[in-house]
Each structure stands twice: as C-alpha cells, then as structure tokens.
C-alpha cells in the first residue's frame, strides 16, 4: 500500500495538491520538508563515497542543507533506498529525488521561509546534478527546467 508519506517522499506531493486532487489535504510543512531532509541525509552519505574534492564538497553541502531543514522543523521521512550501481550514478539518482521533493515543497509549503528553503536546496541540487553529469561525461544542462527528472 502506498502511504501519503511515501508519495511525498517520492516528490509526488503535487498529486495531492494539484488539479483533480483538491479534496486531499496538503501534508503539513514538516512532512513536505521532511521528504527533502531524508533525501539530503542520504545524499551526504552518497557524496562521501565519491573520490576527490568533489565528493567532500558536495557531502558538506548536503549536510548543511540537512541542518537547515532540521532547523526549519522538518520531520524526516524514512530514508530513501540507496540506488544500486556506480557511485556517481547512484548519487545522481538520489540528487534527482531530492530535487523532485523540493519542487513539490516549493509549491505547497505554507511558510514563506520554508518555500525559500526548498527553492534554495533545489537550486543547489541542480548545480550538484550538473557537476555529476559533467563528471559522467554527459550534458550538464539537458533541460531549461531542472526538477529532478531524468532526461
């Protein structure tokens, strides 16, 4: 059974708050930001596995995002499953999950500060994704609207 929390964690909060689903209550801010928090915590671990300066820098930034989200009252969702495969690809998959949760939160979080925080984490995440794509030898800016989607 898919729970509401699981939907949010998957960045699908838009389904709860968007067209055709107005009857569903929008989850509390703590839950919406909690999906982002869980992803950022997982990212901190995934980035720590990357070799070189990039891994250290990105892991520190993910930890910083997690701290800001905790301060904002985020209630962490269950940790997302670690994607299998090569560390760069696994980190990219997790990064996209975080970005999708951020996009969801930016739309429906009630607190203006929470929305700005989600937008900030999305923006940083988009940069991290571009860096990972460069390392993977792919186009770092495959879309003009980075929201966590795979190309």
């Amino acid at each position, binding site marked *: 059974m898919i729970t509401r929390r699981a939907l949010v964690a998957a960045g699908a909060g*838009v389904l709860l*708050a*968007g067209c055709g689903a107005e009857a569903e209550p929008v989850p509390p801010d703590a839950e919406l930001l909690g999906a982002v928090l869980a992803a950022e915590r997982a990212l901190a671990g995934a980035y720590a596995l990357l070799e070189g*300066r*990039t891994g250290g*820098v990105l892991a520190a*930034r993910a930890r910083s995002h997690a701290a800001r989200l905790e301060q904002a009252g985020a209630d962490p969702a269950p940790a997302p499953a670690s994607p299998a495969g090569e560390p760069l690809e696994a980190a990219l998959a997790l990064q996209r999950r975080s*970005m999708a949760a*951020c*996009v969801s939160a*930016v*739309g*429906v979080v009630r607190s*203006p500060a929470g*929305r*700005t925080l*989600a*937008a*900030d984490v*999305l*923006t*940083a*995440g*988009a*940069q991290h*994704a*571009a*860096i990972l794509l*460069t390392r993977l030898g792919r186009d*770092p*800016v495959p*879309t*003009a*609207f*980075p*929201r966590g989607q795979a190309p």
Partner: protein
Amino acid sequence: MSHRDPRGLTPVSRRGALAAAAGLLLARPAGAGAQDGDPAGTLRALLAREEASAQAYRSAGMARLAGQEAEHARALRPQLEALGQPAPPASRRTLAGAAQRLATAAGDDRDPAAIALERELVKAYRAALGSLDDPALRRTAATIMASHAQHLVVLHRDPLRALG
C-alpha cells in the same frame, strides 16, 4: 588568450572574476523589478530579464544558453496571460546592466559577464518567489532559478567555484 575547455566554455581568469565581482557590486538590487504582492508585475519583470538575457547571449555568440533563456521566457508568457495580463510583445530590447555588458563582451570578458548576469537572475528569482501566490507558478519560477544556477556551473572552469 582565451583557452577553450572540453565543455566548450572559456575559463575565467582572475581579472575576469574580479570584473564579474565588480559587476555584481554595481548591479541593481536583487529582485529589482519584482513587486511585492503583485504577481503580474513580478512576472513582467522576470519575463523582461529573460528576454534581455536571451538577446545578450545571442549577441555574445552563446547559442546554447540563449536557447535556454528563451525557453524560460516562453514558459513565463502564458503564466502572465493566465493572470489576465497581456504579455508585452517579444521584441528586440535596449539592453542595460549585466545583459548589456554580456552582449558587448569579447574574449576573456565574455564568461565573467555571463556569470554576473546569471548571478543577478538567481537573485531576482529568489526575491520574486515571495510574491508568487500560485503553486504552479512558484514551481516554474523555482526551476528556472535552478536552471540559472546550473548555467553558473558550466560557465566556471572549476565548477565547484560556482557553488554559492
């Protein structure tokens, strides 16, 4: 001399970075043009920035980024019209500020000028988020802000230096 890296971008010299920093200091305040509590005014200001940026990138010969700026503008136009506001006709603009500096930049000055412009755009969108009431519009604005931040990554020779 301008060196090209494998991404097809020009590395930023120290002098260029200083020029970009100076440009930031001289730039208009973040969010200038955004009007609190006036989503249509905010959108018009963002649309004008995107169209000016696309034009500046085209003038600078940076077609890829020009294309993405134009995509942003195309996404904003219907949002403005959905608010019952006619979007101004897309026409050639008289450029000013960072866009004008990019349009006229050459050689080593080009990428720092683009970096200064992108930093202004990120700040403008961040400031604008507070005056956008509609969830879908906020999501669009946030993803465009993220796109401009990605442009900063590809404009830096060392991508980690793009991180704020």
